[in-house]
């Protein structure tokens, strides 16, 4: 028996020895310092070269690195900033625009940028098959003409938000578009690409804005937030962009990494109201919903504080919007109960739909609780994202639904024109009101500052009054950087700007 025990001890020793070798001999995956010259970024979705003109979750990552757009918008003033369009001039009646192109710009294949490339790209983007969300806005361009290094756009009518639309369109090389090759004029050249997994970019030394510092950028698709975080902690990547804001606080990430918020852009989380479902055909009941939801708690508990509390879909500093409008509906369950009583809708049973993600489950939890507090009987319908998506597309969500949209943070007009839930005429709320369409047309025509301010104010007032598209949160996207990366920036709507980025010790 003594011998037997010996052999057992031998086995134990072997196992322990193996574990010790692992623990002592190697780096630990829980903490690795970052070194090296190139940088690696991780996002939750991989770039898709077949949908270059569509803004998707992943496109801001590589789009602004490989491509240039005609203009960008300034984060603070929301005024256009020249990129490929060096300068521009409106006609007096604001129905035609001449864009002067920057000289000496070359595509990565060596071909010079021509006005025809711009016209080609815009024509593609007007077609909804390209998937471009701004297609309906670009359709207001009736004619495009190439001139001496300039393009003249003729519009069907004044279009106050044309630059919003142009800002979304990366200018592609007309000779290679659609062939699977990805060729732009941007600071980085599209390189080795494994679809769905990884993309490598090398710097464009002939970039018109000057050669960037960082030589090579690798963009990785890492779906799960936890995996992203561990890749960041172990130094495998230097930036991650898919970690839900509330997890920043609850993980050990906050102290170690630079947290940057893609302000002022955000995802608007909303409560959609089907206005043909009783009792929500009564605007009073819809307004009661506005008072019933505790937005502050949603911002804190679901978005970890990285969200703005507002009664409006668009930013609080939108010109023409008043503070009173922003704060119109503060949390007030008593007022909600009173409105419901006036409308005779006490104890009404309502269905609350949402797609299943950790974020929306939590929002649904809170909204359900708040609505039950004011006397509704809530039937929650949490379904998987695809099933929910199908119902959204077909506008089959009788009752209330929770979802989010992204482009409302640009401007009121662009927001309502690109998003299904709030589009005038046809929308998921099934609100068909001529007045709403008229307000949209008025906003298109509002080309002076005064007119624009009024249009924004009127649209805000309309949304507040009708309350069919209720803002729950303006949730910022959060990006974590390794502290070794300096001068990296995101521009308006989260497009990456790494032109000046450096990697220090």
């Amino acid at each position, binding site marked *: 028996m003594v011998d037997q025990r010996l052999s057992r001890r031998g086995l134990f020793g072997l196992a322990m020895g193996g574990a010790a070798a692992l623990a002592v001999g190697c780096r630990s995956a829980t903490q690795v310092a970052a070194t090296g010259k190139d940088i690696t970024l991780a996002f939750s979705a991989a770039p898709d070269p077949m949908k270059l003109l569509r803004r998707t979750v992943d496109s801001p990552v590589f789009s602004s690195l490989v491509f240039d757009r005609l203009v960008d918008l300034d984060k603070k003033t929301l005024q256009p900033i020249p990129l490929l369009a060096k300068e521009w001039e409106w006609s007096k009646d604001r129905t035609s625009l001449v864009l002067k192109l920057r000289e000496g710009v070359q595509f990565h294949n060596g071909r010079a940028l021509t006005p025809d490339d711009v016209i080609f790209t815009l024509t593609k983007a007007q077609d909804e098959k390209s998937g471009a969300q701004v297609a309906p806005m670009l359709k207001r361009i009736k004619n495009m003409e190439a001139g001496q290094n300039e393009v003249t756009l003729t519009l069907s009518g004044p279009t106050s938000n044309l630059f919003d639309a142009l800002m979304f369109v990366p200018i592609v090389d007309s000779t290679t578009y659609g062939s699977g090759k990805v060729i732009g004029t941007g600071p980085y050249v599209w390189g080795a690409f494994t679809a769905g997994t990884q993309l490598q970019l090398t710097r464009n030394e002939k970039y018109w804005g000057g050669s960037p510092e960082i030589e090579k950028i690798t963009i990785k698709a890492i779906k799960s937030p936890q995996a992203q975080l561990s890749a960041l902690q172990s130094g495998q990547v230097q930036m991650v962009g898919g970690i839900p804001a509330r997890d920043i606080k609850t993980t050990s990430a906050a102290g170690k990494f630079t947290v940057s918020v893609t302000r002022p852009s955000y995802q608007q989380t909303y409560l959609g109201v089907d206005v043909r479902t009783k009792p929500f055909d009564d605007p009073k009941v819809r307004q009661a919903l506005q008072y019933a939801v505790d937005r502050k708690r949603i911002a804190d508990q679901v978005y970890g504080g990285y969200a703005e509390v507002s009664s409006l879909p668009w930013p609080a500093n939108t010109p023409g919007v008043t503070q009173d409008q922003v704060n119109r509906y503060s949390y007030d369950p008593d007022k909600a109960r009173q409105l419901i009583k006036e409308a005779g809708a006490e104890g009404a049973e309502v269905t609350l739909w949402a797609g299943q993600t950790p974020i929306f489950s939590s929002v649904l939890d*809170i909204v359900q609780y708040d609505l039950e507090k004011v006397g509704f009987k809530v039937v929650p319908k949490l379904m998987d994202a695809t099933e929910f998506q199908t119902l959204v597309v077909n506008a089959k969500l009788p009752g209330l639904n929770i979802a989010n949209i992204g482009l409302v943070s640009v401007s009121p007009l662009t927001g309502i024109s690109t998003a299904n839930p709030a589009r005038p005429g046809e929308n998921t709320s099934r609100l068909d009101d001529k007045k709403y369409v008229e307000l949209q047309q008025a906003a298109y025509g509002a080309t002076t500052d005064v007119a624009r301010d009024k249009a924004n104010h009127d649209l805000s007032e309309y949304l507040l009054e009708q309350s069919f598209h209720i803002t729950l949160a303006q949730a910022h996207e959060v990006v974590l950087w390794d502290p070794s990366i300096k001068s990296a920036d995101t521009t308006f709507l989260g497009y990456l700007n790494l032109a000046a980025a450096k990697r220090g010790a």
Partner: protein
Amino acid sequence: MTAIPADRKWIRAGRSTKGLAGVILITLLVLAAVAGPLLLGVSPYEQGADALAGPSGAHLLGTDEVGRDLLARTLYGIRSDLLICLVAVPLAALLGTGLGLLGGLTRWGGEVIQRVFDVLLGFHGVILGMAIALVISPGFVAVVTAIVLITVPSFGRQARAALLQQLSREYVLAATTVGASKARVLGRHVLPNVTDSVTALFAVAMANAVKIEGGLSLIGLGIQPPEPSLGTMISAGSRYIQVAPQYALVPVLLLAALVLGLTLLSDAINRERLRS
């Protein structure tokens, strides 16, 4: 060779050390689920501003991400799990035994039923559950259906095997030779034995039901909010394991205790059966 009445066997099973441990664990958990919420007097649905707070006088286990009391939710969670077991397992036992007997008595039906059981067993439990939760939208009904479908084959096979075994026994042959009718032999002699062998599966099936509930919850297809269950608590809590480890850990330990209790009990019952 006659069967000892099932109830006596259960009692005797409870006398062995392991069986006793199982009975005690289960009793404690049932008590916690039934009396716990009454004693605690805190609502598992009441939300508050204080999210993911640590244990305190007001919240003995702290709060979850929307400020609900974790202890109350955990206790209600046990209740959900027990309820699921008590609905799904008897259903599966009835259905499975019925199909198994049918398969054992008719040749053609037997083939078809065997084939169906093979297909069901071919799916991994979680995958089958996933498919069901997608067709019926996730929730109590989907979880119960998944458990029933996953569990039916084992009851069916057990019933069929027991039936075939009994039919080939001498006493049945003897009874038929002395002229007893087939129905009489089945009812008086064979069925009690089959029932006995199926009953023994009960505790195991319940342990499995608890495991399946947890597995489905982890992939988001279990009981839906705001209703708590041990599985959904583990699923939600594991996201906050760094800041509030008790959120996932306590339900995990309780689920483990429930599964262990049922397993120990079923082991003890089986041992008793083998002995007799």
